[in-house]
């Protein structure tokens, strides 16, 4: 049988399976188009009330925005530093006790399963309702992600020089930092810059659990329906994210060597960045330890070590399995819906296919979508659909559009237009030209972007519960607030399991794609 037909049939089959899964996920999460159409007016109502933003509110919000940026800068810097030390411990290509490596990797995998917001909650129990807690949460979050990325890079980096130094008898740590680290440095710095930008967005919602920053204010204004003030905060946030993105682009150009710079210039830049980090760190609100007692710590540790297994024994609504399934369904439906919308949108966002002004306008809209912290979407959609998983699906769909449009556009910019041109010169009209000349090139990069977003959405779906938008987050936060550490531990274990499963599945699919 010809491989060509076989491949087509397999593609058709996987499209069918995906559609069925999507419909099942929609059913489970109560997605209802009629409801959306009927109540969609509330959405446009809220959005229109964000404008014009209340300019008088800027002076109140600005210091809190400062604290937000402070938290993310400190957290990113400390987390990166720790990751730099931990990554060689985890990497298989660096000699060391196997048992220790396994353990270290396991710890990283567990930490990586939790979104910053979930990490921030225990931090507030330890360090009080201060921005110190927020910085601590961001530190751990950055540490976990970056260690993983870096040890994977270390394992694939060329290691001839490293082994040569070892053979000369140089100690492992110095050989590692002299010969192995330089190979992964550009990738490491690029990742740090990307995380810094993402962390500004994450920090903006940490206030929701009292961990400092602008989130508390944002939540308060949404609850009081003072949408013009919400608009003002979002404008500030938009400006901050925009500036961070620009700064990130500039710095990564320097890192990649695309922007030549003299040695003295580099030193001045590095010193300025270090000074900024130190300034952010020392002026951070100090921890409030007045509510922390040895008894609290003891009950926390013993609870976490003794998960409530009964939550695993039931298939009912409050058991771990049902909550996990619901979380996956929300993430899956949200990702699919977001991917579909992005797919329709992205072809209008590249100057290679549409007039430049139109492309610029679409891109600006996508940036605006990306700026709003996802929990805020949750709070807004709750007002439209009422509490429940449907709001969660809409939230994640919205956030997915923000990221996927950007990734898709990058793929189109990298595509080869000559085959489509050749089809054009044969007299083929535009639709089959795009479908058969361009789309085959985009399948793999698009799929990998969607896969990545699904991974992110699983994590975000686990905090949606905070605003009442379904998933495993609500019971987890509830348990922690009640100091029911055994329950929290069981639910957290479920999250770890889920993150591990998604990792394994997406690794499989990725191999299949390439």
């Amino acid at each position: 049988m010809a491989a060509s037909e076989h491949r087509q049939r397999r593609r058709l089959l996987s499209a069918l399976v995906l559609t069925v899964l999507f419909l099942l996920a929609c059913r489970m999460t109560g997605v209802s188009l009629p409801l959306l159409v009927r109540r969609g007016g509330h959405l446009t109502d809220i959005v229109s009330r964000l404008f014009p933003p209340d300019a008088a509110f800027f002076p109140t919000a600005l210091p809190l925005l400062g604290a937000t940026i402070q938290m993310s800068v400190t957290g990113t810097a400390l987390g990166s530093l720790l990751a730099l030390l931990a990554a060689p411990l985890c990497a298989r290509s660096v000699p060391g006790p196997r048992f220790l490596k396994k353990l270290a990797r396991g710890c990283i995998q567990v930490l990586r399963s939790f979104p910053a917001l979930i990490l921030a909650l225990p931090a507030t129990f330890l360090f009080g309702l201060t921005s110190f807690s927020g910085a601590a949460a961001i530190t751990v979050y950055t540490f976990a992600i970056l260690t993983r990325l870096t040890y994977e890079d270390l394992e694939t980096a060329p290691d001839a020089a490293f082994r040569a130094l070892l053979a000369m008898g140089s100690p492992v740590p110095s050989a590692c930092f002299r010969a192995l680290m330089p190979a992964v440095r550009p990738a490491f710095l690029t990742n740090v810059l990307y995380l810094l930008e993402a962390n500004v967005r994450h920090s903006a919602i940490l206030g929701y659990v009292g961990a400092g920053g602008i989130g508390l204010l944002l939540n308060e204004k949404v609850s009081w329906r003072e949408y013009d003030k919400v608009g003002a905060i979002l404008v500030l946030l938009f400006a901050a994210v925009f500036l961070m993105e620009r700064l990130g682009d500039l710095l990564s150009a320097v890192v990649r060597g695309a922007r030549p710079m003299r040695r003295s210039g580099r030193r001045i830049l590095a010193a300025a960045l270090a000074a900024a980090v130190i300034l952010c760190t020392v002026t951070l609100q100090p921890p409030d330890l007045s509510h922390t007692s040895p008894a609290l710590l003891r009950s926390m540790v013993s609870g976490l070590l003794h998960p409530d297994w009964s939550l695993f024994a039931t298939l009912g609504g409050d058991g771990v399995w049902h909550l996990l399934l619901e979380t996956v369904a929300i993430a899956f439906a949200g990702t699919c819906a977001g991917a579909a919308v992005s797919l329709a949108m992205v072809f209008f966002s590249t100057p290679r296919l549409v007039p430049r002004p139109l492309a610029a306008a679409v891109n600006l809209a996508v940036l605006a979508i990306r700026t709003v912290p996802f929990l805020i979407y949750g709070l807004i959609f709750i007002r439209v659909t009422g509490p429940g998983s449907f709001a969660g699906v809409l939230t994640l769909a919205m956030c997915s559009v923000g990221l996927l449009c950007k990734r898709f556009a990058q793929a189109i910019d990298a595509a080869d237009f000559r085959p489509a041109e050749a089809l054009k010169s044969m007299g083929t009209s535009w639709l089959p030209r795009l479908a058969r000349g361009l789309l085959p090139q985009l399948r793999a990069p698009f799929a990998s972007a969607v896969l990545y977003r699904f991974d992110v959405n699983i994590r975000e779906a686990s905090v949606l519960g905070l605003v009442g938008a379904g998933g495993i987050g609500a019971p987890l936060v509830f348990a922690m607030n009640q100091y029911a550490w055994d329950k929290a531990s069981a639910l957290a274990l479920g999250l770890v399991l889920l993150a591990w499963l998604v990792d394994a599945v997406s690794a499989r699919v990725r191999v299949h794609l390439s």
Partner: protein
Amino acid sequence: MPENEGYAIAQLELRGVGKTYPSGTRALRDVSFSLEQGTFLSVIGPSGAGKTTLFRILNGTERCSAGEVLYQGIPFGSAGGRRKRAVQKGIGTIYQDFCLVEQADCLQNVLNAALPDMHPLTGALGIFSRQQRLEAEALLERVGLGDKRGTCVRELSGGQKQRVAIARALMRRPALLLADEPVASLDPVTGRQVLELLRDIQAETGVTILMNSHNLELARAFSRRLLGLHGGAVVFDGPPEALDDAALQAVYGEEGACGSV
């Protein structure tokens, strides 16, 4: 050779074709020639002589700014829209850089040539008839790639890619085959094999071939007629035997005469 002696109108005729770009560059000036069915014509000339511009006008990517191109008596050099598309459908094209969809397999790439005759929607979805599939498979067989139809183009060698491109062009059942530097990205042996394939196909189908080439040796060996361009104007038009040193100098200028002959 199935040369059609009694052909009434020339298959392709250029009348005083000129091309001036918006930047003011005059790429072609007053190019006139006509082509009979079944000829193998090579356009030669140094870089910047206007070979590529001429090719782009002939395949409809660009319009000429003076004169007219007649294809089987129908003017299309300055035409647009549906009329141009109708002419384009009867012309097969192969390129120096192949212009294949690298991520798709050979069969799908050949089938893409059926798109102009299909409804846009069925075309976009890739729903081809059994007959189209059989034809595409037969063409792959013809260019010597019968066993590669399910292989991704990305995994092929340069010569194999150009064979797929030839099969795609033949799928249009063209009366005219345009070849833009078809062997420039290939090594000499593979390049010769590709040209031999083109010559055999011409013998079988009587298709006219118009090739752009800066490889003078191969152009001489395979063409029945050469057209020399210099500075956008025709400076030589005749059989390869007539291309003497004086003519070479006119085409390539001072240093070209001792070139690749």
